[in-house]
C-alpha cells in the first residue's frame, strides 16, 4: 500500500443552526499531512474538528476550498469514490451482518474474489485479535471488540487514508489506553496516513505524530506534543494543553529580543521576539505549575505566598498558593521536599524566569 498525503486548502463550512442562524463550523482551515503520518485534530466540542474530518471523508461538502488526497483533488468526489477508511465514534457496525460479513462488506463492494476476500478478512481479524468471532453478531460482543471490528472493517479495504472520529470515547479508561496503542501500532505497521479526532489531550499526545489544535472553526497551532506544550503560540493552546498559571504583569522595558515585566513585587526578564509590546502595557504572563518552586523563606528574588491547599497524588504533590490575592498552582515531583510544606504555611514562591511566557494571540 502506498501512503499518500492529505492536503486541506482554505476549507470553509457554514451550517444553518435553528437558533443561532449561520454558524461557521470550519473557517479557513489549511492543513498538510505528510504520508504515513498520524495527525490529530484536537479541540473542545463544537470546534469544527469532526466537521473537518467528515469533509475529508466526503460526508460533507465544503462551501469553499479544496481537499487533495495525494495528487488527486477529491473535493467534489462522492464518499464512496474516495477510498478512505472511516472509524465512527459509535462504530456504526451493520447490526444485521455477522462480524465476518461486516468486515467483508467493503471487499464485496469492490468485487474481490471469494478466496481473496476470505484470506484478507481472516488476516485482518487475526491482526486485531478477533479470530474465532466471524459468526458472531455486533450485539453479541463487547464494546472493545466492536471497536476492533470497526477498525478491521475500515482498514481491510486498504484505504488510501484512515480517518478516525473519536474512536475510543465509548470505551472505559483502561481499554482506551490499550486500544490507542493498538491503533498506533497498526497505523505505523501499515503506513497509513491518518487523521484522528479527539477532545482528549492525553490521547492526542500519546498517539500522534503531530497535533492540530482547533478552536471555533480555526486551526490555532500545529505541532508535535512537545512543541505545543513548551512553545504554545497562544493563550488558548497554552491553556488547552496541560495546565498553566496566569499572572498580571506590567511591561517596564521592551527590546527587540526581550522585555522586562513587573509581577507583583519583582521584575522578570522574558526573552521574546513578539512585536508591538510597549512599556507601561498591562498583560498576563504565563507559567506552568511545574516551573514554580516553593521555599521555606522568601529570598530576595522571590514572591511571598500562603499555602491554601495541598493534594498528595503519589508521584506528585499539588499545591495551591495564594500570592497577593492571586491563586497559583504549583506541582512538585519531589515528595521528600514537599513533605516540609504544610497548609496555611507562609512560603517563598520562585518563578523559573526562562519558563515565563507571554502571548499577543489569544487564539479564540
Amino acid at each position, binding site marked *: 500500500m502506498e501512503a499518500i498525503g492529505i492536503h486541506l486548502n482554505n476549507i470553509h463550512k457554514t451550517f444553518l443552526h435553528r437558533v443561532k442562524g449561520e454558524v461557521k463550523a470550519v473557517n479557513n482551515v489549511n492543513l498538510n499531512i505528510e504520508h504515513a503520518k498520524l495527525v490529530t485534530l484536537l479541540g473542545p466540542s463544537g470546534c469544527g474538528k469532526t466537521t473537518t474530518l467528515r469533509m475529508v*471523508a*466526503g*460526508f460533507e461538502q465544503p462551501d469553499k476550498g479544496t481537499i487533495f488526497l495525494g495528487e488527486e483533488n477529491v473535493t467534489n468526489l*462522492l*464518499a*464512496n*469514490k*474516495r*477510498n*478512505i*477508511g*472511516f472509524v*465512527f*465514534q*459509535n462504530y*456504526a*457496525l*451493520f*447490526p*444485521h451482518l455477522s462480524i465476518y460479513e461486516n468486515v467483508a*462488506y*467493503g471487499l464485496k*463492494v*469492490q468485487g474481490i474474489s471469494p478466496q481473496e476476500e476470505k484470506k484478507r478478512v481472516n488476516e485482518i481479524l487475526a491482526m486485531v485479535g478477533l479470530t474465532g468471532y466471524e459468526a458472531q453478531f455486533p450485539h453479541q460482543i463487547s464494546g472493545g471488540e466492536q471497536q476492533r471490528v470497526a477498525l478491521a*472493517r*475500515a482498514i481491510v*479495504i486498504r484505504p488510501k487514508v484512515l*480517518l478516525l472520529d473519536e474512536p475510543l470515547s465509548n470505551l472505559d479508561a483502561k481499554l482506551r489506553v490499550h486500544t490507542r496503542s493498538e491503533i498506533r501500532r497498526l497505523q505505523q505497521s501499515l503506513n497509513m496516513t491518518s487523521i484522528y479526532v479527539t477532545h482528549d489531550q492525553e490521547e492526542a499526545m500519546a498517539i500522534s505524530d503531530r497535533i492540530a489544535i482547533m478552536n471555533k472553526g480555526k486551526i490555532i497551532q500545529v505541532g508535535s506534543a512537545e512543541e505545543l506544550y513548551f512553545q504554545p503560540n497562544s493563550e488558548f493552546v497554552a491553556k488547552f494543553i496541560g495546565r498553566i498559571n496566569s499572572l498580571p504583569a506590567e511591561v517596564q522595558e521592551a527590546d527587540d529580543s526581550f522585555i522586562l515585566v513587573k509581577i507583583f513585587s519583582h521584575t522578570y526578564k522574558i526573552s521574546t521576539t513578539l512585536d508591538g509590546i510597549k512599556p507601561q502595557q498591562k498583560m498576563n504572563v504565563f507559567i506552568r505549575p511545574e516551573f514554580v518552586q516553593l521555599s521555606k523563606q522568601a529570598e530576595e528574588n522571590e514572591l511571598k505566598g500562603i499555602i491554601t491547599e495541598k493534594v498528595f497524588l503519589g508521584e506528585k504533590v499539588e499545591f495551591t498558593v495564594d500570592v497577593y490575592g492571586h491563586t497559583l498552582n504549583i506541582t512538585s515531583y519531589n515528595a521528600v521536599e514537599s513533605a516540609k510544606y504544610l497548609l496555611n504555611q507562609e512560603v517563598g514562591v520562585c518563578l523559573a524566569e526562562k519558563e515565563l511566557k507571554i502571548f499577543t494571540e489569544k487564539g479564540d
Partner: protein
Amino acid sequence: MPAFFNVFKKKVLTKLPKDPAILLSIIVIWFFLLLFILFPLSKIFILTFEKSGHFTFSNILEILGKRNHLQAFWNSLLLATLVGLSGTILGFFFAFTSVRANLSKGWSKFLDGTIILPLISPPFTTAIAMIFSFGRRGLITYNLLGINTFNVYGLHSVLFAETITFFPIAYLTLKGVLAGIDPTVEDMAFSLGSSRGRVFRTITLPLAIPGLANSFLLLFAASLADFATPLILAGSRFPVLPTEAFLQITGLFDIRGGAVLSFILLVPAFSVFVLQRYWVSRKYYVTITGKAGAQTQIKSVTSRTGKIFLTVCILVSVSILYFYILLFYASIVKAFGANYQITLKHYTVVFTEGLKAIKDTLFIATIGMLLGGVYGVVVGYLVSKKTFISRSAMEIISMINYSLPGTIVGIAYLIAFNNPPIMITGTAIIIIACYVFRYGATGIRTTVAILQQIDPSIEEASFSLGANATTTFKRITIPLILPGLFSGLGIVFIRSMTAISATIFLVSINWTLITVRILDKMTELELGVAAAFSTLVVVIVFIVIIFINLFLRLFRGPGAIDMSNILGG
C-alpha cells in the same frame, strides 16, 4: 440572464442530489404524486368553484341552500364532536386503568386483545351487530326486553357504534401518553402530601392534556370521515356529509353536487389535520428525568378502585366481544330474528355468488400491498434520509390522501379518471392506485419511524467502504427496515381488506370488493350473508395479523405492529 442563471445554479442545481438513482426516484415519485394525489384533488376544487368557465361560489351556495345538505354539515360536526368527547373519555378510562391500576398481565392482554377488534374489522361490523341487538326484532330490545318500538336509527346509534369503533384509537394514543409520565413524578407529589385525587387532578391529568386534545382530534377526524356506520344506522332523519355525497352521486348522478359536498367535508377535515399536525403534536410535555428512575410501585389508585375500574373495562370489552359473537351467530342461523336454525347457506352464498368479490379483493389487496410497500419505502427513505429541494412538500403531499376522508378521495378519483387523458374508471388499476396512495402512507410512516432509529453513520460507513447509494440501500437500509416494513405491509393489506369509503365510488361490474358486497347485502336485507362476509373478513385479517406477529418474532425486528394505523376507512 447570467446573473439569474447563477442564482438558479446556486439555489437549485447544487441542491439536487448527485446520485442519479436518487434523482430518478424523486422525479418518478413526483410524477405519481401529481397524477394520483394533486390532480384528482384539483378536480374537486375545479368542480366546486367553476361554472361555465368562471370562478364562482354559487355551486357551494346552491348546495348549502338545500336544507338537507346544510343539516348534514351541522350533523357531521355535531356527531364528530360527540364521538371525539365520548371516545376520548372512554379511551382515557381504559388507558388509565391499563397503565395505572396495577393490572395483572393476563387482564392487560385481554383488554388489549379485545380493544383491537373494532380496529381490524370491516366497516359495517358494529353497525350490523347494533341492528341485530337493538333493531325491531333485536336480540336485546325484542327478545330480551320485549320492546318493539325502539328506533335503532339516528344520532344515538351512530354515536354509540362510532364510539365503540373508534375509542381504541384514543386508548392507544393515551396509553402511550400515560405510560410516558414517569410515576416518580407522581411519587414526588405524594411525598409532598397530596392525596390520590389531588395527584390525579394536579399532576396526571394536566400532563395528559395534550394527549387528550390529540385523541379528541383523531376521533373527530375518524368520525367525520366515517361513511359505513352512518349509512347503515343514521336513517333518513340524520344525514351526514359523507353519506349525502354518496347519495348525491349514486342516487341522483349529480357528480358536481357530490364534489361540492365533499369539498365542504374537506374544510373541517383539513382544519383538524392542520391543528393535529402543527399544534397539538408539538405540545407534548417531555417529562424531564435524570437517569431512568428506579422501579416504583404505582399508587395512583387504591386496589379497590383499581378493581372497580377493571370491572367496568371488562364489561365494555365483553360487550365488544358480544357484538362479534352475535355477528358470527347471525351468519350461521337461517334468519336472525325469525328463524334460529343452524345453517351454512349464507356461507354457500359467500363462496359461490360472492367468490368473485373475494378473489378480486384478495388480488387487489395483495397488489396494493406490494406496490404500496415499495412506494412507502422509497418515499419514506427519501424524506427522512435525503435532503433535496421539495423534500418537505413531498412529505406533506404524500400524506394528503391518507389524511382526507375516504369519500373525498373516492369522489376525486371518480371525477379525475373518468375521462381522457387517463381513463381508468372500472379497472382494477384505479382501486389499486387508490389503495397505494392512500394506505401506502402507513408504509411511509413506518419506514420513517424505523429509519429514525437507524444511526446515519451506518449508511456513511457503507459509503466509506466504497458502496454507492443503490448498493447501500439494497444491502444495508432494506435489510434493516425489512421486519418493520413487513408489518407496515400487513397494515396496508388489512386496510385494503376493510376499506369502503373511497372505493365504493370506484368498484364496477368487472372489479368489486367484499366490503361493497356487504353493503349490497345489507340493502337487500340479506343480513345473514352480510354477516357471513363480515366474519370472513375478520378471519382473514386475523390470519394476516398472526402471520405478521410470527414473522416479527422470527426476525426480532424493531417496530411491532402499530394498531393505531389500522383504522377502518
